[in-house]
């Protein structure tokens, strides 16, 4: 998103920030410490182990400590061992020739077009994209689309029209709450068993960055859920669509939000399959702890930002489909991006040709023209959009996973969104 007229943005931030000081939400969840998973030590949790490895003295540190008192990492938390472990475990899943493919897309559509006093938040080219993106997505053969940043009801209505045309069912939550979370789920109608179950839920996060709601752009973040029986296999699927709070310095808010989602995922029965998609605004890996500039100030805490991904896997018992498919290359590619130089504000990473080497590795980067126009050199490239699954049976296979919609829209010089998507093909066994 972009704030037009920086002086207006500054004035707005100053004026509204002082208002927000008086109405902040609590900093930690009321039930932090109540879940047995809170007390798990980093060194005992496979998803958190790489965080422990980035600390000098992690012995007694627990998941709760990560949220309550985020530690100061002394080296980048490197999830490569976790990736290797997940990929190896996935390779053990027996082939099932009767398994049915399920194509899942997670995509932040970037249809942001809002104002609040003195500030306009708009992802560039929104007027063109809000017309062209919905039919494009629904004609691309996805079975499940988990979308974020479809903020406005007008855009929901476009998707609903396109869904009716293309044979999809839609879940956007309640009209009122939708304008706060901007989430939209679409499922190919033929895949939903009309005999049920068909349960559609909506939950807002306990902790928010309150100024995003009022007097900001009216964001109240949360997640959508949709439980239905997959008609071809009879498997009950539990879909979740999530969008957490953005920006590096809100890592604690984000950590609590993924904990809330993870605990909701854990409540799903083991004989059902959970698929989570979303923009988590936190990457698994950051090469530098300090990277980029915002308003002339360095952006810090990128290592702490990686906690959210690990905590989500920990609390939700989730597997990253991109990693399982062996497609996660964000760690080695992150190391190829140099520290910010003045030229980074003029050209992606100071040299546009660097983007060729970064293709397929990240869902946000300065290589995306819409992102560059808004956030040039304000952060490292990141893989922050995910398709994750929880399959207690250990039989759901990830056929493939790839970063999607990296190219400009046909006949345009800009992309479908300021994020790229991530799409995975899962194979669901028929006899879970």
């Amino acid at each position, binding site marked *: 998103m972009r704030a*037009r*007229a920086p002086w*207006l943005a500054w004035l707005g931030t100053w004026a509204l920030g002082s208002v927000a000081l008086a109405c902040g939400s609590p900093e930690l969840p009321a039930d932090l410490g109540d879940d047995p998973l809170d007390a798990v030590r980093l060194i005992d949790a496979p998803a958190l182990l790489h965080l422990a490895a980035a600390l000098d003295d992690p012995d007694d540190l627990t998941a709760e400590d990560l949220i309550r008192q985020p530690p100061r990492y002394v080296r980048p938390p490197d999830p490569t061992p976790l990736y290797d472990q997940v990929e190896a475990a996935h390779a053990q899943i027996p082939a099932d020739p009767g398994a049915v493919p399920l194509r899942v897309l997670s995509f932040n559509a970037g249809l942001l077009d*809002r*104002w*609040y*006093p*003195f500030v*306009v938040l708009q992802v560039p080219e929104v007027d063109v994209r809000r017309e062209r993106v919905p039919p494009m997505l629904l004609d691309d053969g996805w079975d499940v689309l988990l979308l974020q940043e479809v*903020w*406005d*009801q*007008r855009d929901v209505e476009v998707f609903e029209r396109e869904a009716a045309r293309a044979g999809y069912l839609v879940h956007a939550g309640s*009209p*009122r709450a939708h*304008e*706060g979370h901007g989430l939209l789920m679409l499922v190919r109608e033929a895949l939903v068993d009309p005999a049920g179950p068909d349960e559609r839920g909506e939950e807002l996060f306990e902790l928010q960055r309150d100024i995003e709601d*009022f*007097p900001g*752009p*009216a964001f109240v973040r949360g997640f959508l859920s949709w439980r239905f029986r997959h008609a071809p296999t009879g498997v009950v699927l539990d879909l979740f669509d999530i969008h957490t709070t953005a920006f590096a310095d809100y890592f604690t808010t984000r950590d609590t939000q993924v904990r809330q989602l993870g605990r909701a995922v854990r409540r799903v029965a083991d004989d059902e399959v959970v698929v989570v998609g979303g923009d988590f605004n936190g990457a698994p890996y950051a090469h530098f702890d300090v990277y980029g500039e915002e308003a002339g100030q360095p952006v810090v805490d990128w290592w702490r930002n990686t906690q959210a991904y690990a905590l989500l896997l920990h609390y939700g018992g989730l597997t990253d489909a991109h990693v399982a498919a062996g497609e996660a290359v964000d760690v080695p590619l992150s190391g190829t991006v140099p520290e910010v130089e003045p030229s980074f504000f003029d050209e992606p990473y100071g040299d546009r040709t660097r983007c060729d080497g970064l293709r397929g590795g990240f869902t946000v980067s300065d290589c995306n023209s819409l992102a560059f126009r808004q956030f040039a050199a304000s952060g490292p490239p990141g893989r922050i959009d995910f398709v994750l699954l929880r399959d207690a049976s250990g039989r759901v296979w990830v056929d493939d996973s790839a970063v999607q919609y990296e190219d400009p829209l046909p006949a345009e010089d800009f992309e479908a969104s300021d994020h790229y998507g991530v799409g995975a093909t899962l194979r669901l066994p028929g006899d879970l």
Partner: protein
Amino acid sequence: MTLAVAAADARAEPAAVSFSPPPASREATPAPPAPPRPRRGERSGRALLWTGGALLGLGSVVRAGIEGFWAGPAALEPSEPFGQWSVPNIAFFTGFANVLVVPGLVLTGVGAHRRGRWRAERGLVDPAGHRLRHRVGWGLLGGGLAAWALTRAVARPVLRACETNGCAYGYIESTYWASLGLVVPGAVLAGLAGGERRGSSRLSVVPQWGPDTRGLSLGGRF
């Protein structure tokens, strides 16, 4: 104690009545009327009227600036769908102008009141005009405030029903300017009329101290 009437034309000039102790060795003589006490400039209400007008003008500029923000940087098109999410921000944002307009309105009303009193004290008030100002002023002020309160009270359901920006922002702004257009002249006229009435019926008590007179001069219309 004697009662001496210094001036009797109750219509044109306030009557002045002097209460003074009996002279020691002479017969009672009319006390010379006390010279009108010089009034400061602000008592005429001019400064308040200028200040109130300036605040109202600034408030109107701010309000117009808010509309410019919506039409310009925010690029809201009248025909585009109205975002219900924006209702709290509209209420908040438009309140910025009222920070200037409300005190401006109060100062204008008080200034007009003082101005009316100042005029009345100088016999500059035409009774027929006074009655007209009183009626029209309170009518405009009451009508404007009622219109403002009513349109704000029902704004939520109205905006909920609006499907386009033209409907929502058109409603908010047209009712605002219409209400303001009634309230401002209403405050001026009602303030003026109120001041005139007060000034006309005002009692003045002025101490007197002369070679043969000591006491108080009581002036007013009876």
